[in-house]
């Protein structure tokens, strides 16, 4: 046994406890070690992922030698493994991007990198764990790291955004805890597979109460309407790399847990329709708000919320093809939004007012960054030959197959809105007249590298989507195979 899923939790925690001691040796180690850890984890995720795909069996890791449901177990299946690989890959790029990020130097870097590493640990933990209370604990780890990172800069309204986030986030975790309490009183277990097995014994009224509490609590993390008030502020006031991490890790973990509750744990009729309706409302309202924004990062944040609404719609359709499209869109959203936030941060740093209208002509001052931003914008609105095209196409096709024609109309109209506001920014970047040619902050080497990798991924997947569709297809199959999940986890009990 060389690598196992528990490394995703144990290694970063060990490193986090070690870093304060390493800081006494060298300040540089504080920056390097989190990167090494995250890099190691992405290697582990690739190894485990190939193992899972080759054998076709998920890896169930038992903690403390107690087989589920008596102990906590981690599940590294094609579905969770896909998300974890995506998260660690994005986290590694974010680390490269922020390694020499100028503004981190003036505040204590030690804290930034440990907090970032714990954010990654919390998000991967949420995805891996097979125990509902353990999910709550990891959610709190993610949340506290996220609050502290949002308030990291002192020259912005970070504390306001962080408090707003904390208020909504604590509310969410309180609801989630309440849901766990009620659920425990009914089924007497915390293991998700066993809950799924016993959920049919719960009286209908109680089931709906618990389900509502879960959906509201987790919907906050997943940026579902109307509980996403925290997102625009948190995205725009936090340091640039942290915004990327929110889009690529935290929200993904939130969507994952929502999907796990709806697809695996509960068997409520109408839950899927509920997801579609909430997703559609979220998408429409967020995209219209994005159109109205004058601040670039807020615009990106609303666009991110809109995309999450789109993901919820696709999950709500519930067919295999739609789930496939949703997972593909999650992948694309992480990669493309990552690129947009990374390049957008540099655009914002070179525009003291942070307003879109003042970004005129930056395309000539910062050709590289503007190119990446334009590439990301073209990809996210779903133009061929970029990767965003494929996910949108698959979801539309799935909607057509399930004959949700009104949904297709909504998605197409929303896409036009998206095109309008992204092209407006691009028009400013390339066809505006620059006010001066002072470059306030050039992108660092690491930044260009990270953005270059993401741009390459977008183009390569766009031309040749087969590189990932195999993984995504098996992930979608795994998610929809509820009986398989229950069996795989609980068969260990009888050994």
């Amino acid at each position, binding site marked *: *046994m060389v690598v*196992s899923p*528990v490394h995703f*939790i*144990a290694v970063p*925690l*060990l490193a*986090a*406890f*070690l870093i*304060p*001691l390493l800081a*006494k040796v060298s300040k540089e180690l504080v920056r390097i070690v989190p990167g090494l850890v995250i890099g190691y984890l992405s290697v582990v995720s690739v190894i485990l992922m190939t193992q899972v795909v080759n054998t076709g069996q998920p890896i169930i*890791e*038992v*903690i*403390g*030698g*107690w087989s589920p*449901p*008596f*102990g*906590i177990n981690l599940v590294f299946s094609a579905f969770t493994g896909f998300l974890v690989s995506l998260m660690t890959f994005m986290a590694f790029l974010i680390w490269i991007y922020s390694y020499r990020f100028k503004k981190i130097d003036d*505040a*204590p870097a030690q*804290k*930034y990198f*440990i*907090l970032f590493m*714990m954010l990654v*640990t919390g998000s991967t*933990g949420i995805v891996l*764990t097979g*125990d509902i*209370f*353990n999910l709550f*604990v*990891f959610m*709190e*780890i993610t949340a*506290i*790291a996220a*609050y*502290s990172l949002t*308030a*990291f800069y*002192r020259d912005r309204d970070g*504390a306001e955004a*962080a408090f707003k986030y904390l208020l909504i986030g604590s509310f969410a975790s309180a609801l989630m805890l309440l849901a766990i309490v*009620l659920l425990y*009183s*009914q089924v*007497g*277990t*915390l*293991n998700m597979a066993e809950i799924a097995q016993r959920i049919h014994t719960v*009286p209908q*009224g*109680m089931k709906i*109460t618990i389900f509502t509490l879960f959906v509201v609590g987790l919907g906050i993390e997943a940026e579902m309407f109307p509980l996403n008030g925290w997102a625009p502020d948190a995205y725009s006031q936090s340091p640039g790399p942290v915004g990327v991490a929110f889009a690529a890790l935290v929200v993904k973990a939130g969507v994952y847990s929502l999907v796990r509750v709806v697809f695996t744990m509960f068997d409520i009729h109408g839950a899927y329709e509920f997801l579609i309706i909430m997703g559609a409302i979220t998408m429409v309202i967020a995209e219209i708000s994005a159109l109205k924004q004058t601040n670039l990062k807020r615009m990106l944040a609303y666009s991110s919320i809109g995309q999450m609404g789109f993901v919820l719609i696709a999950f709500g359709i519930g067919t295999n093809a739609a789930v496939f499209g949703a997972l593909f869109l999650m992948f694309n959203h992480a990669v493309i939004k990552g690129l947009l936030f990374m390049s957008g941060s540099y655009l914002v740093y070179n525009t003291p007012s942070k307003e879109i209208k003042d970004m005129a002509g930056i395309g000539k001052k910062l050709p590289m960054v503007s190119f990446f931003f334009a590439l990301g914008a073209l990809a996210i609105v779903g133009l061929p030959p970029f990767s965003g095209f494929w996910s949108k196409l698959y979801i539309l096709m799935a909607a057509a197959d399930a004959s949700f024609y009104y949904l297709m109309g909504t998605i197409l109209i929303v896409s036009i809105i998206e095109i309008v506001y992204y092209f407006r920014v691009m028009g400013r970047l390339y066809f505006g007249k620059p006010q001066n040619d002072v470059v306030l902050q050039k992108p660092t080497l690491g930044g260009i590298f990270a953005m270059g990798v993401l741009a390459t991924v977008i183009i390569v997947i766009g031309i040749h989507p087969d590189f990932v569709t195999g993984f995504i297809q098996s992930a979608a199959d795994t998610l929809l195979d509820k009986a398989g999940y229950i069996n795989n986890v609980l068969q260990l009990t009888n050994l």
Partner: protein
Amino acid sequence: MKKLLVLLLLAVVGYSLITAMMGVKFGENRLGDPQDEKTVSAYYLNNTTQKLSVSNVITAIVVNYRGLDTLGEVSVLFLASLGLGSILYRKHKEGEEEVAILKPSSQLLQAGSKLIFPAILMLGAYVFIHGHLTPGGGFQGGAIIATGFLLMMMAYQDYRVSHSVLVWVESLAGITFAGIGMWGLLLGNTFLENFLPIGTLNNLFSGGIIPIIYIAVGFKVAAELTGVLDTLLNIKDKH
């Protein structure tokens, strides 16, 4: 208007909670027969004494059956003390006169604290060392020790807990916890699996790795909570 909406919301929440709790009878035995182990709790109550030789079932659950939760919980505290430092951090400016936020305390408190302080530390240590035998454990003991330091900080304005000692204690305790877990994995078993002899029930040296982990948790929690209090108490007002 807003108030009305909120009251409406509260009524809805209250109603659904009350109806939900109607179905959960107070004091009812939901564990089922311990012998057929239908629920997780019945299994714990039935097997803890034989398999782990720990008298306090809650300790067994917190440290071993659900050890990952506790590792997460310890890191939440770690993150909170880290986050507090990052949120309240500010550059020291030249010529800034600093005034502590606590007022000088009376002679009585000062003399009394000195007397009580070692006793509190002893109580805290007792609580976490006997975590597997009696009620209490790492969290309770750590919190008790932190209140001891709090008493000293309140009594003596210039009382400082050395920052580097806190960092050392915190890191070493954390490494012990995660390291014991990893050691179980390296021995070919699973993470956090017990690899020490479990001893006999109700002895101090029983329960395998459980007391060791709980002592590490005790030190870590004490250091973390003291660190939080230290950070908060040393926010200076400029005069």
